[in-house]
Each structure stands twice: as C-alpha cells, then as structure tokens.
C-alpha cells in the first residue's frame, strides 16, 4: 500500500518538476510562476469560475473518452464529435425556437445525436471493415473542421453574410448564466448529471459490463456470448454523443453561435483528463478542473508575466507520460501472486 502512495508521490513530483525546468528555461522563476498560477485560478472567483467553464467541456469529452477506453477503443475524435454536435444543434435551432421549455433539452439532445452519429459511424467502420478507430477518428477531426469552415460560410452563415460565423441561437436555447458577473453557465449541471449517469451505466449496467469485458479480454467475450460488434458500435456512439453534447453545451452556454475557433482543441486534453481519472466517471470532474486550472492559469501567465501559452501542452504531455509510467509500475508490482 505505502509503495503505491510513494509511487503516486513521485509521479506528482515529476509532474511539477518537468514543467518547472521549462519555466526556468524560459527565464522565469518557477516558484513565483506556480504561485501566480494557483492563486489566480483557485484563489479568485474570476479565475475559478473560468476554470469551471473550461472544466465543463473537458468533463463531457473526458467521459466520452472513458466510455470508449473501457472497451479498449481509442477514440481520439473528441474534437470532431464536438463540432458535429454543435453544427447539428445550431442547424436545427431555428425549428426549436418556439417550443418553450423543451427547446433547450432538445437543442442539447440534437448535439448528442450529431456527435453520436459521428462516433457510431466510426464504430460501424471498425466492425464492418476492421478500420483502425484511431486513424479514422483523427481523420474525422479534420473532416469535421472543414465542415465547420464551410457551414459558417455557407448554409448556416449569419443573415448579413459578412462574417464567417452562424446566426446567434435564440434566448430560449441558451443555458442560463449561474452567477451574474462570471461566465459560469448551466452546463455545469449538465456535466454533473452526465457524470452521475455514466457512473451508473459503467458500473451497474449490463452494457457497461460488456464494454469492460471487451476491453479486458475480447476472447472471453466471445466465450461468454457477448456480441462484440453491437457493443463496439454502441460504445462509440455513446462516446461520440458525449462529445456532441459538449459541443451543444459550449454553444448554448458560451458562444451562442458557431464560429471558426469555438472548438478550443479540448479533445486531446480530454484524453489526459480521462486517463488521470483512471477512466472512473466520478473522478473525471476533478481532473477536468485540474486541466481547467492549467488552461486558465496559462492564459493568466501569458498576460501577466509573458510566459508563452504552450506550457499547458507541456504539462499535459508530462501528465500522460507520468500516468502511463505509474500504471506500468503498478502492473509490475501486482503481477506476481
């Protein structure tokens, strides 16, 4: 037991030490930098509410990654699925406008459908043609990005047809701001609800069990009569739906319209978020907040002491490496019995 904690401690130390080295290289004081990063993001409401705003899509995308990884499927397509969800939701927004209280849930659902179709398509390609889902999802990211570029200059462009962005969605479709003066919106509750539901599905449902068997020992799944194909398609559909939901939430809560760079590239960070949470849904909001801290903190560092933004990517890389290392060490200690 104590050995595990020691390992975890070393990993955490590594996560702090390596970026500190880069901060030193950039000619700044690591201690002052970390202090600033933490006091702004965790010590001020301005900073922390912004952390939460970032943590919302990271949580939803992280859940999507976790669902797929449980089944041993590597869904790298979070960004693409997020865009697909957002585009479909905005496309149907004009129809939803007059539906009263049901408009917002339907808007979010449309997002989930958009992402789900994108994810399910990957699942179908994988089961039907044995296509490698890593390659397909990465390529789909580019397809989705190009589609976004087109729709906001074409079918969904704002009525004046001047700027490369869509019309703004109606008030009824916008998630309420939770605290006037901050950007924190109702997407927080959507994300927490998704966490609870997914925790239930993964740990208590037959579907979640099938996913886990498939991920751990696909041959045992054959033996036990678990049909791999529908499980894979459904798993990727759910994974994509969570990404699409993240897209709709971003539109409904933050942007209110499609524009070129509304998708901030959270998809890759979401992989680190899910891995650090050890694919446990309940832990994902916490790791999402941690990455929110890095995102918001990096922005603050850039503004206040001129430290370049890529720090967040360095930290992310270190975290993924550290996670994989600690995981490997654990398998080694647990192997013999």
């Amino acid at each position, binding site marked *: 037991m104590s050995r595990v904690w020691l390992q975890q401690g070393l990993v955490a130390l590594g996560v702090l030490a390596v970026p500190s080295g880069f901060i030193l290289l950039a000619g700044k004081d690591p201690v002052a930098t970390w202090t600033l990063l933490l006091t702004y993001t965790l010590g001020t409401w301005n900073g922390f509410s912004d952390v939460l705003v970032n943590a919302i899509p990271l949580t939803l995308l992280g859940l999507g990654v976790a669902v797929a990884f449980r089944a041993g499927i590597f869904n790298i397509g979070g960004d693409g699925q997020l865009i697909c969800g957002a585009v479909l939701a905005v496309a149907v927004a004009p129809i939803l406008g007059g539906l009263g209280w049901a408009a917002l849930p339907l808007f979010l659902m449309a997002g989930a459908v958009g992402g789900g179709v994108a994810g399910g398509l990957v699942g179908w390609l994988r089961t039907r043609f044995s296509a490698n889902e890593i390659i397909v999802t990465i390529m789909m990211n580019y397809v989705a990005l190009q589609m976004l570029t087109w729709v906001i200059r074409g079918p969904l462009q704002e009525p004046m047809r001047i700027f490369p962005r869509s019309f703004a969605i109606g008030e009824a479709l916008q998630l309420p701001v939770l605290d006037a003066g901050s950007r924190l919106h109702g997407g927080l509750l959507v994300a927490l609800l998704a966490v609870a539901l997914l925790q239930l599905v993964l740990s*208590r*449902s*037959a*579907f979640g*069990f099938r996913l*886990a*068997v498939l991920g*751990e*020992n696909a*041959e*045992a799944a*054959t*033996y*036990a*009569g*678990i*049909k791999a194909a529908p499980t894979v398609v459904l798993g990727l559909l759910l994974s994509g739906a969570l990404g699409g939901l993240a897209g709709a939430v971003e539109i409904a809560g933050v942007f209110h319209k499609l524009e070129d760079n509304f998708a901030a590239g959270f998809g890759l960070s979401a992989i680190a978020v899910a891995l650090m949470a050890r694919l446990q849904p309940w832990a994902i909001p916490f790791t999402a907040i941690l990455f929110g801290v890095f995102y918001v903190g990096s922005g603050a560092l850039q503004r206040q002491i001129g430290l370049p933004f890529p720090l967040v990517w360095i930290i992310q890389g270190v975290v993924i490496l550290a996670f994989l290392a600690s995981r490997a060490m654990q398998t080694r200690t647990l192997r*013999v*019995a």
Partner: protein
Amino acid sequence: MSLAGPPLLELRGITRRFPGVLANDDVSLTLARGEVLGLLGENGAGKSTLMSILAGLIAPDSGAVLISGRETVLPSPLAAAAAGIGMVHQHFKLIGAMSVRDNLALGDVRWGRFTVDYPELTVSIGRLAVELQMEVDFDAVIDDLPVGRQQQVEILKALSRNPAILILDEPTAVLTPHERDGLFRMLARLKARGAGIVLISHRLEDVIEGCDRAVVMRQGRIVGGGPVAGLDRADLVRMVIGDDLAEIERRPGAAGAPVLRADGLVLRRPNGTIAVDGASFDLRAGEIVALCGVDGNGQGELVQMLAGMLRPHAGGLTYWLHGREIAGPLSAAALRQLGLGHVAEDRLRHAVVPNFSLVANWLLTALFHGGLAPRGWLNLATAEARCGAAVRDYDVKAPGNGVPIRQLSGGNQQKLVLARELHGAPELVLAAHPTRGLDVRTIAFVQRELLRARDRGAAVLLLSADLNEVWAIADRVMVMAAGHLHGPVPVAETSRQEVGRWMTGHA
C-alpha cells in the same frame, strides 16, 4: 543421499505472505544431485509460490536459498537462470504473438547478444526435440498452438539451457501418454548427468513412476515426505489430503432423448488446413460422452463449434433445449441464453477475465441466463450471494470475492469456473479438460459434480486426454485423430488400448 559435500539445493525457512494468505510458512527442503523430487499438495498449498521463489519471480519475506552450500539471492529470473535453475511454468510465460523460434531465442544470449543465430538455434533445439520425441514447428505462432504444444515449447526452452536444477510445474497435465514418456526419458537422462529435478504434479502416477522422493505441502507447510520406493497411490493420497479418498462409484447413466446432434460438421482453420473433417454424433440427455484425442487433432475446435464460438463451414447442428428443437449453428450468445454450460479449454484466454474480481467473473457468463441483469441493470447483490455460495460449496480458496481472480491458484480459478458453468442446472454441458491441473481431491469433486449433472438429466460432453478419467465417469467415448472422429462407442464395449490406438491414428 549425498554424503560428500552440501546438497545441490537447500531451502531454509522460506516464508512468503500474500495479502490474506500465508503461501509459504517456514519451508525447508533439500535436493541432491541426480535426484528427482516430487512436490505434492492440493491447489493453493504453496507449491507454485515456493518454486516461483526459486525461479527468481518472487522474493521470500524471510529464509534463504543455498545452491551447493552457498547462499544465493535470486532477485530476477535472469539471476536464477545464471545460478543454473530452469523452470517450466504451469501458466506459460510465452509471447503469444511471436513464433516458436523467437520465443526460444528470447532472453537467451547463447544465440547472440544483438542478433540471433537462427540456424544454430534451430539445429540445436531441433536435436533436443528429436531426443524428446517432440514435434516442433519453429515457424508456428504461439497463439495458434493448442496448450499442449505451447507447453512443449516451454519445456524445450528450459531444457535447452541445460540447467543444473530443473523445476517443472505440472508438466504432464497437458501431455499425451506418448509425450509424457518422452519427457520422463529426458528427465532420466538429465538425472544421470547429475541434475536435480523438482517435479510438481497432481498426477500421483508421475510421482510413483518418475520421482525418487516425495515431499507433501499443505496450507503453506511441509507436512510429510519420504522415498517413493515402497509408497503406493493410497499412501500418497493420504499424505496429500490427510485422509482417505472415497473411490468414485461408477454407475452407468440412463441415456434419454438427444440434446445435441452433429451431422457431418466440417471446420477449416484460418490457415486452410482441416481441423474437423465430417463429425457426426448424438449427445443424449443423462449421459457423459468423452471426447479424447492428442492435442491439436481438432477436438478443441469441435467443442468450440458446439459452443457457438466457431462457425462450422459445413454440416448440420441441432439442439433440443427446453423442450424445443432448435436448428443450429447457434451463436455463443444464443446458446448462453438457452443455458449452455461450457468449461473452456484455455481458462485464462476464454473462461475468466484475469483482472476482474471473482464476482465479476461470476457475472461473465451467468449474466445472460441467470436473471442477473433484469432490464439491463446488474443485480450485484444476487451475483455476490451466488458467487459467495459457490466459493463455499466448491471450497475455492480466495482472500475475498472482490480480489482479481488472477490472484488465485489455477485450481481455485477452475473451481469457480466449474461452479459457474454448472449453476442453474444446464441441460447441455461442454466440459473441456475440467480437471486439468487440479489436485486429487478436487478432481474427485469435479467428477462427482459432472456425474450429478448427468444424473439429473444433463447431456455432458467431456473433452479429456486422461483415460483414467474417461473410464471413471464416461458412458460413451469417441476419439478424434487428424480431424476424423471415431465412435462414439460405449465405454464398456472398448478398451483403453483400442482408444489409445485411435488417438495415435491407428484405426
């Protein structure tokens, strides 16, 4: 035994604790040059742990290992190999995706430190294989080989290093009588050269025929032992279980209506060779039909076809389950819904998910016919209760139901699989090597359970290479050789000699 000098190997007060289990409790033993020591004990008695310590896989909590009188620390398998200790593991340590040749080369600097001298390796190990009368296909990929063939590779790998001390953990469990004779001849040759050999086995015949001395472990301690000369089967059984074992009472079954009919089943392997070439037979309610064969002759594939894991390329399959006639082939999913019980041949590959807890492994197949997932949600309380009851009834030794099943010894894993597959009174039971690697007491228990399943009307197919087992519980016997099926014929109307001839392809 040896008057001059210290023994080849001495263990002094070895103790090793795992969470919840004292696997080795102050174990001391010696091994002389030119001695074959039989290490006996029930599943989970601590034999494998003790040998893993010798192989450098596990460090003891306390105690010392002395080789030729010198205290030796074995921090790694490489150190153990350098100290002249070779080990053939019960669970093979082979790389499944690699060829036999690559596996033999792995970790052995004799074939070159940076490149591998494959021709030299092939010639050298090929010669050894001829001596052992084993057939080796150097290009075969491990995962494509049946378990028996995989073990041959393990044995070859260990013997190719010419170890001074050779440890074999259940080496004969998956070998045919012919291969077993070859192994024992090789051991005799090693012994004559002064090597010391430790043979872990549940087969008492192995100890009686092949060992000089026996040591018996129970619950982590050494509880007895002595020279094998003058001991018989009953003596050994008494030493192992501390009690007499009641003989299985052989009663004929009352066969009823057919439960399964195979009609000209054909299966080709992915490489195009024929695995099963036109198998036709009936399996009837209330009988045990044994399926025998030398590993790799298609009988494993036949069972997987009947279980819905492989789809036949030709031929018909009909099932009569729950009073309905159902035309096959059916998927494994459909058969599970109909309550099939299937003990898979390769436990770690198919029958369990090693990282899952006992309860989750119970759910693995029980999920689909045991009412454990009403409306798609898991009924964990019931699963835990049933798994707990199975752990008690089948005497599964485990630190708890929540631990990963890979922490259990092979025999205890097998007991849980058996309990799961016989739960809920299945009408059709496919049992592939259900007693492989189990101790005598557990074997008798498993065989009684299969007889009980038969007596309440189940049709049981028993895939077995052990003719003692076949004659103990089967009603009819059939044999597969090179994809061809002989029989089935009533056990009473044939002889072991005849079945043995069929197995080796002499009809």
